[in-house]
């Protein structure tokens, strides 16, 4: 019984991290219909940004958010404007471009750090608390809380603000959005910026948990793809719940089968869901057709 509680706790905490990483990816996909392969590298940049603030400014890793969030937002908006917008009529090329960006960022950081692994510590990082007999690290609880906060806040923003409605309008029918007065190009920049900022947030909160390496982005992006497909492409709630499905699947498969098999099991589930319900467990049925419909 204690085992089960432990596995569930591990799964949920891992799920929180995955959810945090995936929300931005899913927002970008839902609105711009680009699979951003470089999303993991945005998380990585957030981590290195946090490390830099921690080392040079001597601030707590969490405080680095003040710099990392706007930094990544700007970076994302610029990437969208300078790299993706010129390719707007060639969606396939946009995907290749994000893959190129992945390689570029990884190698630039590799060259800058010369492969040295960094890590940061904070008071929070060394604290763990017991919940029902299970010891959980405070940093992971913070990530879980942040993922929940982000999902709720983003959901409310998209649902109830005029800007949020405009973002959803662009996702559903961009010509019609133009006709009601939405500047679609600006929404794309803004959305990509928000997606990148959310990756930055994830990076910042994960810095005390993981050892930094230039390749760390790749280890986030694969589960994140599983998360968005399971949860539903383009759905914020789906990315959140999908995170837990992936986290729990990994935890259970790792314990009851074999730790080496956890990713194999995960992606078997991923493919099965894709076949049975292409719109994901929480996606809007038909949303995938709407987004890919021919739009002038």
């Amino acid at each position, binding site marked *: 019984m204690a085992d089960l509680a432990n596995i569930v706790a591990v799964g949920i905490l891992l799920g929180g991290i995955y959810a945090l990483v995936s929300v931005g990816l899913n927002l970008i996909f839902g609105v711009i219909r680009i699979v951003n392969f470089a999303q993991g590298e945005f998380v990585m940049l957030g981590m290195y940004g946090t490390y830099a603030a921690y080392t040079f400014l001597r601030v707590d890793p969490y405080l680095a958010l003040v710099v990392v969030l706007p930094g990544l937002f700007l970076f994302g908006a610029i990437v969208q404007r300078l790299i993706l917008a010129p390719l707007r009529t060639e969606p396939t090329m946009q995907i290749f471009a994000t893959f190129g960006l992945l390689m570029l960022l990884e190698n630039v950081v590799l060259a800058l750090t010369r492969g040295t692994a960094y890590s940061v510590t904070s008071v929070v990082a060394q604290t763990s608390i017991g919940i029902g007999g299970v010891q959980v690290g405070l940093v992971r609880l913070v990530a879980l809380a942040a993922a929940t906060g982000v999902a709720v806040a983003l959901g409310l923003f998209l649902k109830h603000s005029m800007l949020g409605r405009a973002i959803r309008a662009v996702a559903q029918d961009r010509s019609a959005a133009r006709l*009601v007065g939405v500047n679609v190009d600006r929404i794309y920049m803004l959305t990509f910026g928000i997606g990148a900022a959310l990756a930055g947030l994830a990076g910042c909160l994960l810095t005390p948990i993981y050892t930094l390496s230039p390749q760390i982005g790749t280890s986030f992006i694969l589960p994140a793809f599983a998360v968005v497909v399971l949860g539903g492409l383009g759905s914020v709630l789906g990315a959140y719940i999908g995170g837990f499905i992936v986290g729990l699947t990994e935890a259970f498969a790792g314990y009851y089968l074999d730790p080496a098999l956890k990713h194999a099991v995960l992606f078997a589930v991923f493919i099965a869901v894709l076949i049975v319900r292409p719109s994901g467990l929480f996606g*809007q049925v038909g949303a995938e057709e709407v987004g890919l419909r021919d739009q002038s």
Partner: protein
Amino acid sequence: MTPSAEMLSVENVTAGYGDATVLFDASFSVREREIVAIVGANGAGKTTLLSTIVGLVQARTGRISFRGRDITRRAAHLLPGDGLALVPEGGRLFPFMTVEENLLLGAYSPDSRTKRKERLQEMMELFPILGERRALAAGKLSGGERQMCAIARALMSHPVLIMLDEPSVGLSPLMVERVFTMVETLAREKGLTIVLVEQNVTEALEVSDRAYVLDHGHVVRGGEAAILRNDREIQETYMGL
């Protein structure tokens, strides 16, 4: 502006997609408070003409002006704020948003946004059915309701000129009648100027003041609707008489 002042003028516009030219040297004009019908067969270039006016398709040559201002190269998203609204074919509502959200988005341009709550109320009064359906996803509306919602969404920006692309297509005869009545109400009671693109030539010529005939991308006829309605050639080609 005097009552007969020119509101929209399209001069020698050529437009198309990629290598294909759809519209050739098209010219027409709309005066204030008029209902102008643009009729023609499927594929004649009617939708392209509207798309070019609102800037979703770029004119290759020619000039488009609205209330005396050149809008040929003006960005599409600025036109609702200028007072020009298009109701696209099929309505193009945002299917996963509620009726209310669709309407609110109609008032997205900065001048309208502050007045969106009052206008929403106005629309619910003008189209009581939308009031009943306000919390329903727009994708679940019937064809007639969808068309009403699309017209209401366009009205949310308080346009002076509203262009409707095939508003009667796919609707039951009863709904077709209602849509045309609504068009007349908007013009005669609300003082709106209307461009009505239709394949239903008989009905369109009945409600409009003037009309143009589009054929294979060329404007081939133009004049008083009453005269075109009694024209032998038009009756044979477009009205099945």
